[in-house]
């Protein structure tokens, strides 16, 4: 299986003068195509910064990020936007939807950017995704008429519209109650089973339990990796994985 993301010795700093500090301090990460990677670490350790660097949402000060064989720093803004639209999907902690548009329109938005030729097919696909995620009744509703969990599903549908190679998630269940969080994670796991690479930042051990590999980041450096292998989602398997992960994290002082 090939590498979809290769980050080599990346450095990212924030602040000016004496206040300037490296949030990412020489991080190297390889992610395989189809892999499910969770990034964990204490607050301020650089998790989200790493996610944004790997997805090209943010530039790096040093080092390189190669995504699907292309070094992101060499791409223009527009080319980077094309990569995001065609090969990446994003799910954030807070649903980042446009209030002006209804649910269906939010979902199809990135796909219709490239033209209206396939409008019918695009809408059909969006409806199929809504059905899959259990929000088909929201189609014509405004985003203010949906709950947090429903909105997160809308975000996932939007992320899946372009059949992305990688889905990046930044605390996708962070703002949800446990029932909704479980449902969303089940959904993301299903998506991963279709062959989509997953890179999630999370605080939640139960979320990270579903990952094949967990990276622990501390003070801008990768402090270790816990490889759990493929998850079969059985109750026993999940319990065993969670126990192992908690033990490993405790070793790391988390």
């Amino acid at each position, binding site marked *: 299986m090939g590498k979809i993301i290769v980050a080599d010795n990346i450095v990212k700093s924030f602040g000016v003068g004496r206040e300037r500090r490296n949030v990412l301090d020489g991080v190297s990460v390889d992610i395989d195509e189809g892999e499910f990677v969770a990034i964990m670490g204490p607050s301020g350790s650089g998790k*989200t*910064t790493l996610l*944004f660097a790997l997805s090209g*949402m*943010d530039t790096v000060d040093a080092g390189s990020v190669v995504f699907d064989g292309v070094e992101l720093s060499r791409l223009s*803004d*527009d080319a980077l*936007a*094309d*990569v*995001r*639209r*065609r090969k*990446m999907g*994003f799910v*954030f902690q807070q649903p*980042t*939807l*446009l*209030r*002006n*548009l*209804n649910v*269906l*329109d939010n979902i*199809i*938005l*990135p796909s*219709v*950017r490239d*033209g*209206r030729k396939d*409008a019918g097919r695009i*809408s059909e696909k*969006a409806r199929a995704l809504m059905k899959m995620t259990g929000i088909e009744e929201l189609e*014509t509703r*405004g985003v*203010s008429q949906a709950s947090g969990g429903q909105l997160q599903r809308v975000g996932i549908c*939007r992320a899946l519209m*372009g059949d992305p190679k990688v889905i990046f998630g*930044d605390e996708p269940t962070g703002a949800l109650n446990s029932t909704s969080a479980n449902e969303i994670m089940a959904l993301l796991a299903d998506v991963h089973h279709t062959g989509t690479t997953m890179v999630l930042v999370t605080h939640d051990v139960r979320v990270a339990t579903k990952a094949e590999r967990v990276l622990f980041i501390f003070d801008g450096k990768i402090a270790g990796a816990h490889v759990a292998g493929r998850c079969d989602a059985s109750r026993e398997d999940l319990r065993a994985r969670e126990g192992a992960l908690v033990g490993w994290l405790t070793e790391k002082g988390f």
Partner: protein
Amino acid sequence: MVFRAVRNDVLRSKAITLITTLFVAAATMLVALAAVLVVNLAGAIDTMMTRAKTPHFMQMHAGDLDRARLAAFVRQNEDVAEFQVLEFLNLDGSQFVFGGGSLAGSVQDNGLSVQSERFDFLLDLDGNVIHAADGHIYVPITYVQDGTARVGDTVSVAGMPMAIAGPLRDSQMQPLLSSSKRFLVSSNDFAALERFGSVEYLIEFRLHDLAALGAFGTAYVAAGLEANGPTITYPFFRVINGLSDGLMIAVILLISVLVIAIAFSCIRFTLLAKIEDDYREIGVMKAIGMRVSDIKRIYLAKYAAIAAVGSLVGYGLSFFLQEPLLANIRLYMGESEGASLAPVLGLIGVVLVFLAISAFVHAALGRFHRIPAAEAIRFGASQEAPSASRRFRLSANHRLGANTFLGLKDVLVRRKLFSTMLVVLVLTAFIIIMPRSLHNTIASKSFITYMGVGDIDLRIDVQQTDGISAKTAEIAASLERDGAVSRFVVLTTKALEALSSDGSKVRIVVELGDHSVFPLTYSAGRAPTTDHDIALSALSAAELGKKVGDVVPVMVEGQARDLTVSGIYSDVTNGGKTAKAALADDGADTMWSAVGVELSDATLVGEKAREYASRFSFAKVSSMDDFVAQTYGPTISAVGTASFASTGVALIITALITLLFMRMLIAKDRTTIAVLKSIGFTNADIKTQYVVRSVSVLALGVLLGTVLANTLGESLAGAVIAMFGATSFAFVVNPLEAYLIAPALMALSVLLASVFGTLDAGKIQVSESIRE
């Protein structure tokens, strides 16, 4: 706390606060200027007319004069306070030879006067009564101002060299619209030059009470006194003295209203945007028990500060700008005695603008009452979604690209916000199109037909000479044989008596002849065609109390004849009280006659004018183009300049406002832009969306602005043109300018401003905005 909140807010939005303050400053400056100019103009006219002791009633008369009969009339009439007869020595323009040329081409009746002893004084620039020494001549200030005459130079008057001793102010003949100009000489020089021209009498009266003017006019006519010439009254002198500066003030007032509207729009836009931004905070403040009035105070303080600073700056600027604008008034009319009141009135105007802004902001903040705290805290934004925009769906749209759709959708959803930009664009389109159309209208050849003159190439006047009828017949016979003349008409002017609705006798100056040859534009009705028709000027109709279809008894050949009013037209010539009829009256004396000529080749006008002037030395020949250029030229050119200036100003306003709005929107929409970027929209896409927003609002703005300019603008322009005596007119719109060039210029301005205004969109980092 309020001070800190205001300071932080201002620091966060420096450019926006600056532009809003600038508009408030511009608005208050214009209001203060208009107030100062109104006070000064009215005061200066009053001061000049008081010092000059302008006559209340003046009858011009050519021909024999019975002074004893006039003196007897004055003795019997209790209204008369003072009475005098002045002589005006009419000289041909070519008799005045200056260093740089003569007045041969002047359409004015130029002549000499001596200083009067009782009233109607000619004044120097200090407002003092001038006493001309022998060999000295004082020239109308207009000629000094336009460079025709230079003080200190010599002018040859009918061959007599005279030193130009200075300019003079003439309270009754100074304006360009007055067709005569008086030069002042000593009695000796006047006597020496008398044989070179014809004397016209100015029979002048001052009354104890100006309110008795109407009754006095009726008594004068009833007494059958000298009346071979126009009658002009004090109110008419006042109007024509104030006309050109009044026009300027009207334009300033109009622009200040528009700028105030723009300033209000700016404030409304920034306020709405700020409320949207602070929606959650407002909810929180309400939730923790702050009273709406306390929350409002924080917002009100910022705009009160902007209004106060803007008003002070505007008031200060008005002092710098009033000097050049007052220069013209000071030069032609002198200082106003009430000038010290002007800054106070200006300040009152400024305070009114300040209060209006505060009240406007207060009213706009009333929406705080309608913000539900729970909803604001939960969603951080108003949940109102207009139903019309809900039906406009991306999934149901098969024509528009995603960027166009998103731009249009946003305009529909946030229409309250965009309506503000729309208002500004409507106003700027109006400011561009309306003055251009006004200029096109008054510069068009047909405009003269609104002013009591037909559309002719040449006009030959026979006046103040013996045997007017025979001389006119000689001209007509000659024109008949002239192959270059395609049409001509002889119009003879006589003074006839008419009976007004209240039964009193009124003297009207009636132009007799065929008025269908070169028709006027009638504000109501049509030209007189039968010998029982009469058309009245607006002023005559008002004085007689008649409208179209009414019957006016007029004394024709010694007998009363009922004439039907066929039409009403505008006229500012001859005191404005004129009439036109197709009947013949050989009994009445001819005051003057005029021959209107149309040439088969209009390019021959200059050549023919010279030819006729030398062939008919007793007549005054003027080309209509010269007449228009000399009478209305400065006004037309001033309106032309003003229209170009307003186009420039409007384009700058358009660009500034678009820039302001775009920058504010980009700042407000940071998160949305970041979301769009995160899902693969490029910077160019985002820019396109904002350009779609501004261009769609622009298109609607130009459309509404054009409609408004051609409806409301026409009425407003009508009010301005009515000052010239034209009571009704139709806009002459240049379609290329109004429908192509103006929108294209605005589009260019909006596009450039949108592109510059959205530059920041490219700098928005997805990572930073989403993380927030």
